[in-house]
């Protein structure tokens, strides 16, 4: 069982806001799913350590400079930014 307070704490960590109407349903959904997930506690893990899905190791690149992207491209999805910076106004009234 997960409590409403825990749900609100998780929402804060995940940077999500939960409306009052949503919290009841969300708490109940999450409780059910977490209870289902608890099934893994019954399973023995035979001290198996898992780090890597396909044993690829040492995938390295060389320390050679490649040309960076044009600033216009980097800022393209934010309407060109401001003086080359991404900007967040301190507050905005919609």
């Amino acid at each position, binding site marked *: 069982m997960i409590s409403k307070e825990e749900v609100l704490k998780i929402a804060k960590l995940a940077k999500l806001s939960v409306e009052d109407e949503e919290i009841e349903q969300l708490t109940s959904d999450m409780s059910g799913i977490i209870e289902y997930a608890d099934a893994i506690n019954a399973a023995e893990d035979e001290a198996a350590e898992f780090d890597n899905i396909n044993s690829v190791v040492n995938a390295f690149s*060389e320390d050679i400079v490649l040309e*960076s*992207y044009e*600033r216009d491209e980097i800022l393209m999805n934010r309407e060109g930014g401001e003086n080359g910076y991404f900007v*967040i106004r301190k507050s905005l009234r919609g």
Partner: protein
Amino acid sequence: MDYELVVGLETHIELSTKTKIFCQCTTEFGGAPNTHCCPICMGMPGTLPKLNKRVVEYAVKAGLATNCKIRNVSKMDRKNYVYPDLPKAYQISQFDKPICYEGFIRLSSGKSININRIHIEEDAGKLVHERGDTYIDYNRGGVPLIEIVTEPDLRSIEEVVEETQD
């Protein structure tokens, strides 16, 4: 009651590689904002990191210079948190298998300061605040760092200064 000063240090050091830790953008200092960036260090959806070999080499060198043990098998982990200077909302760092561990530095007094670990991680971008607005430059994002963590062995300001200079 007398208090005793007990200090452990966590020092971040920028590595002098030519390129960033997970992409091949330049690490050159200065440069107009957001001109040393690419989809990878910007954390654009779908991009994947590729580790710069020289970062590992330098980290190992730092470990050897501080009498550390070097791990045979090391890995990168994600430190998840949301902040405007962190494009992926996680910093790729090392958690439980840092590249170097259990070393020491000897001070001029002969005392040993033990080093718990040295690990590799990436730097975040730069935030500039002006009149309450937040401006962000990601040039520094992805620049490689090592973090050296000492045990709480330091006992005086002088020792701390000497440790840092070393």
